[in-house]
């Protein structure tokens, strides 16, 4: 009885404010899609960080034959095996070094081909053009400077690179995009909340006769407010549903199909479906609760109980 009565009231209210309801749904959908997107982006960055920080540390690149003419540090030609052995022995003595992986020019060529397989450059490269290197894993990744000062002037060393810096730039870019998405989300959220407040106000005004009578005959304030709150929550839930669909479709087209970034950028590990699906309850929950709360506070102002 009561449920039926309330449901019919919600239906009437939503239809009466169809344009406003639509505006609420769209703005909630956009803000929640951005919210979900930025949550996923954060996951993406932390997965990538874990993945890369494990692999990337400091690399010592050695001179090869080709560098003799082009690089002032390599005027004596390719690195000799004695030079490499001294460096390796010194590295072993340093307490900050966890382990050292040797990468020969053949291996470097192989890795390059794996990573940039469809680049036209691959065909013009030969293994001896690639640099030999030591990949050094540090116990404390911040101690890059120790390695750099110790080895960058050694004979046969072309350069010492803190590879974390390279990936950090990428992460900074991703984080920046994330903040931008969050800022747009905050703006959309404010728009959505203002729309909800306004919808509730219009709705409360057009039904002031009913609510006035309800008050007089002693309907509880909860009972008087519920249709308005449910209206807002329902519109918000629809918006959250649209946002969820946008996230799912977005991942599908960006990563799996369509743009298919997963195929093109194989060395990046993308966020999985499980991570995306885990965000949806949060998106739906916020979509349901936030408009309901906004309506509740708007009613305190616009609906005397």
């Amino acid at each position, binding site marked *: *009885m*009561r449920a039926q*009565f309330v449901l019919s009231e919600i239906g009437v209210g939503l239809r009466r404010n169809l344009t406003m309801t639509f505006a609420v749904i769209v703005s909630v959908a956009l803000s929640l899609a951005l919210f979900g997107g930025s949550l996923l982006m954060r996951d993406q960055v932390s997965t990538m960080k874990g993945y890369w920080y494990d692999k990337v540390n400091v690399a010592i690149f050695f001179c090869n034959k080709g560098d003799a003419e082009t690089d002032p540090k390599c005027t004596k030609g390719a690195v000799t095996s004695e030079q490499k052995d001294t460096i390796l022995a010194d590295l072993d003595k340093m307490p900050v070094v966890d382990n050292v992986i040797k990468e020969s020019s053949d291996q470097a060529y192989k890795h390059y081909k794996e990573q940039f397989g469809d680049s036209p450059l691959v065909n013009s490269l030969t293994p001896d053009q690639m640099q030999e290197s030591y990949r050094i894993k540090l116990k404390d990744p911040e101690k890059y400077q120790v390695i750099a000062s110790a080895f960058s002037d050694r004979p046969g060393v072309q350069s010492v690179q803190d590879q974390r810096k390279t990936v950090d730039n990428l992460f900074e870019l991703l984080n920046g995009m994330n903040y931008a998405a969050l800022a747009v989300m905050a703006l959309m959220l404010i728009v959505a909340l203002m729309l909800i407040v306004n919808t509730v106000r219009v709705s409360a005004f057009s039904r002031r*006769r*009913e609510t*006035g*009578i*309800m*008050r*007089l*005959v*002693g*309907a*509880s*304030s909860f*009972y*008087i407010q519920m249709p308005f709150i449910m209206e807002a929550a329902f519109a918000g839930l629809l918006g959250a549903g649209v946002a969820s669909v946008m996230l799912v479709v977005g991942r599908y087209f960006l990563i799996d199909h369509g743009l298919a970034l997963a195929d093109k950028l194989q060395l990046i590990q993308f966020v999985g479906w499980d991570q995306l699906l885990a965000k949806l309850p949060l998106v739906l929950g916020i979509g349901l609760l936030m408009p309901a709360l906004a309506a509740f506070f708007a009613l305190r102002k616009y609906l005397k*109980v």
Partner: protein
Amino acid sequence: MIRFDNVSKTYPKQTRPALRDVSLEIERGEFVFLVGSSGSGKSTFLRLLLREERASHGQVHVLGKDLARLSNWKVPQMRRQLGTVFQDFRLLPNKTVGENVAFALEVIGKPRGTIRKTVPEVLDLVGLGGKEDRMPGELSGGEQQRVAIARAFVNRPMLLIADEPTGNLDPQTSVGIMKLLDRINRTGTTVVMATHDQQIVDQMRKRVIELEKGRLVRDQSRGVYGYQH
């Protein structure tokens, strides 16, 4: 039933109080006219009874409860024991007569069976038996006021508050409404009625409370509208 102890009410942003130091008592089953010119404080008096407003000073007791101490969430419970009727009827134009009365029961969560049984009963009582399915717009003013009274009475309230219920009606129709209110009063319901209708007050010979500029200036049992010296 109702007790005012030194009640004053000043609305925010106003210097002149709408009610000043009013003390009175109304017993169970009484019929009381509240008279006074516009702005004398009648409406404020009724709004205090309904707890639409709170007194600035003094205490208002209604149905044995101190309204100042009544928490907000208990107010609806209190209002269920009151019935209210207004000059402008306040019916829902898009609902039938029966639905209008039923609305009062629906919104306080009464079961459907009870509603189906009580609504025709109370419509019979106010003399609108068989007009359940008519729309308010099809009825005369007097009939619409009867619907409003039916809605106010359907909960069998202890106290019926009427704010100029005959203000929009012609004298003959007003008499019918007064007879109905009298009948409701005889069932034991206390009636407090604000009015400007001299003829009615003089005919009924009930207790009259007169307010002037917010002060209680006369409280007379079996009184008339104007001063009698």
